């Protein structure tokens, strides 16, 4: 067997799912940036689910659940996406090889933990990572464009198989996807407006106190109540929020900068001045989230200067700002 190496323009991304869809679409000639994919999918959100515990800490997320972005973007842009899951691991690996042999870039959902090229401290059992396979060496190693990495990487077949078929929450079951067809040209403008409207609507949250603005305020209340907990739990609780906001590839400030970047690009495409202002407001929101992360960590380091109430107040100010941003987004109308 000889090497299979397909053409790929690797571009480092902040987030795996947006990065993969951007790479796959660009390979078919449709130029959709990472922030554009994120924005079109109305993926920005906030979730605080105290019932779901990960490693003993509540689930905190800044976006819609995994797979939403790829599905929504393809549906909206009328991109033909072929995806497949497998119960038989061998068949799953064979199907990957077949697609590569046909000359197709293949997107995969995998676990993070079993990918040997990840830094040790960032490996954890999270099953909804995404990457693109662009080839296979004669020795049987897979050539991978992992969107969150600066450079292309290589992964032994055994490890990739384990990563694709890791069991547990959000198990990938070998999910692979290939883009078959893209429309020749796409007018993004109507999609931009409808996506912004949807994001704005979701920012309020639904009747449950776990999502959107309500979720942020709920979390702020919970931070105040941490006073009753042991210092160690206080630190781990706050640290967990900061990690979900910054560490796991969000482009900074829990996707808020990526969203502002989308608004900025949308302004360029549509020529709508309202969007320029909204992008600036989005940046302020992101900056405030970064300050919240700093405060949270400052509290963990030396507790005298800053109280839990201060940290909670900062978080509440994030909620206030997002509410104002929502109002702005709702006023945005297509430029006549």
């Amino acid at each position, binding site marked *: 067997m000889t090497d299979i190496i397909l053409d790929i323009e690797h571009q480092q991304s902040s987030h795996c799912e947006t990065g993969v869809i951007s790479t796959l679409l660009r390979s078919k000639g449709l130029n959709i940036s990472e922030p554009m994919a994120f924005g079109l999918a109305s993926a920005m959100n906030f979730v605080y689910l105290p019932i779901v515990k990960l490693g003993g800490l509540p689930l905190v997320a800044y976006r819609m659940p995994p797979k939403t972005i790829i599905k929504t973007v393809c549906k909206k842009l009328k991109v033909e996406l072929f995806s497949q899951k497998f119960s038989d691991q061998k068949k799953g690996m064979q199907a990957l090889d077949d697609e590569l042999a046909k000359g197709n870039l293949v997107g995969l959902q995998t676990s993070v933990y079993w990918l040997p090229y990840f*830094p040790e401290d*960032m490996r954890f059992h999270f099953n909804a990572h995404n990457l693109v396979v662009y080839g296979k060496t004669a020795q049987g190693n897979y050539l991978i464009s992992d969107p969150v990495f600066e450079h292309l990487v290589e992964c032994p077949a055994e490890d990739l198989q384990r990563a694709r078929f890791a069991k547990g929450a959000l198990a990938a079951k070998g999910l692979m996807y290939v883009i078959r067809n893209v429309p020749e040209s796409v007018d993004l403008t109507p999609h931009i407006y409808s996506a912004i409207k949807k994001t704005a609507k979701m920012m309020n949250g639904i009747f449950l106190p776990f999502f959107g603005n309500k979720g942020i305020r709920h979390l702020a209340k919970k931070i105040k109540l941490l006073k009753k907990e042991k210092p*160690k739990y206080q630190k781990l609780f706050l640290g*967990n929020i900061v990690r979900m906001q910054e560490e796991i590839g969000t482009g*900074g400030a829990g996707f808020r*900068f990526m969203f502002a970047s989308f608004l900025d690009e949308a302004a360029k495409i549509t020529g709508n001045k309202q969007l320029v202002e909204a992008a600036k407001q989005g940046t302020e929101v992101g900056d405030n989230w970064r300050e919240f992360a700093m405060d949270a*960590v400052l509290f963990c380091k030396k507790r005298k200067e800053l109280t839990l109430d201060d940290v909670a107040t900062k978080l509440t100010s994030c909620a206030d700002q997002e509410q104002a941003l929502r109002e702005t987004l709702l006023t945005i109308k297509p430029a006549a």
Partner: protein
Amino acid sequence: MEQKNVPQDNSATYQGQKKLVYAVDETGHYTGVQSTGWEVESFATQMAVDDLQQQTDEALLQAQLGEVSPLAYHMLRLRFDIVSLAQTTGFFQWQIKRHLTPKVFNKLSLKKLAVYSDVMKLTVDELRSLPKQNTTPE
């Protein structure tokens, strides 16, 4: 965040990797900027990693004293907990809790051990054994 304010803190947790963040350039528009780390973020990461390491060290010590089974040590070492191990193995949480005691673990059938060894990428022998050198408690 402005491009010039993107932190470049060479975080040890990145292990030489860079991450992409979005920031505003001099013209007021967004661009992707590589960052070598942010001290605030890496502090949070390190805190979580240290906590896991501490739990793992304690489990090793307890396993060496025969208070818990080697499974307790390997579970934590491989970043599992009872919940995630239950999800991956298909055992119930109460079963895993029992398997964490040496008395039950030592009598486990090969079939059950094989389930663990499969999802944890360990041989049955590795699963049953502990690292040789005795790390002294502080």
